[in-house]
């Protein structure tokens, strides 16, 4: 009886841990989604051409991106008419160079 009660407590604690882990994960992914909702257009800096190109499902940036000077790898814009380069701030997304020199940043 004692062992059964202990097993039930262990199962309950395990389920609590699962709930906490899933809840934390849901919270962090919701935070990311909100950020994307505020700024729908992303432009990726193409080092070779020294331009910003729109990053979308079908158009991915080509060439390696390493943040150079004030040029961030990814900038946000409220329109698809081109980013405001003077803003110079990324969307809080990591620069490609932080993952590796040859990494790309993919968006949903």
């Amino acid at each position, binding site marked *: 009886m004692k062992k059964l009660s202990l*097993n039930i407590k*262990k*199962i309950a*604690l*395990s*389920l609590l*841990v*699962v709930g*906490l*882990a*899933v809840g*934390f*994960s*849901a919270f962090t*992914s919701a935070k990311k989604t909100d950020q994307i909702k505020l700024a729908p257009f992303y432009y990726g800096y193409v080092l070779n051409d020294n331009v910003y190109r729109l990053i979308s499902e079908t158009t991915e940036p080509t060439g390696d991106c390493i943040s150079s000077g004030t040029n961030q790898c990814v900038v946000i814009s409220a329109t698809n008419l081109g980013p405001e380069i003077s803003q110079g701030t990324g969307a809080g997304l990591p620069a490609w160079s*932080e*993952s*590796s020199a*040859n*990494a*790309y*940043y*993919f968006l*949903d």
Partner: protein
Amino acid sequence: MNTATMETIMSKITLLRITDKAKEWMVYGISLLCLALFAAAAYDKVVAHQTFLKGLSRVSFIGGAAIYISWLVPVTEILVCILLVAPKTQKLGLYVFTGLMTVFTIYILSMLFWAEKLPCHCNLIIEKLSWEQHVWFNLGFIGLAINALWLGRAKETSKKKR
């Protein structure tokens, strides 16, 4: 050697020895850590399935199997979570956890050594870590799981001796 000296030595040995109860709770604690990791990872992969699939499909040696792997991984993680929740299947859960983490680590290492371009972090368990950091993270968890299995075995051996 007199009795008093023997008693002092025995009490020191007793202090150093981990009790069976302590071993049981250590194993349980490590299982909870592994459970939390895989529960969060499985949730992320199911909710952001498209991102995970996209990342996998960019890996050259995975190719067309990306769609199957993109479902197999979270399903296996959920299965491991179920095994770890139930005390009776915890040991099996730890074995499968260790095996799965080893596979993930081999995948990360092969990407680091042979991939021409590293894809996004979307198919890593923790996206904020770099690929290199993730290798150490995985090795840490593998070490913990192996330690838990060893402690469990040591506890069973000491029970049999009595």
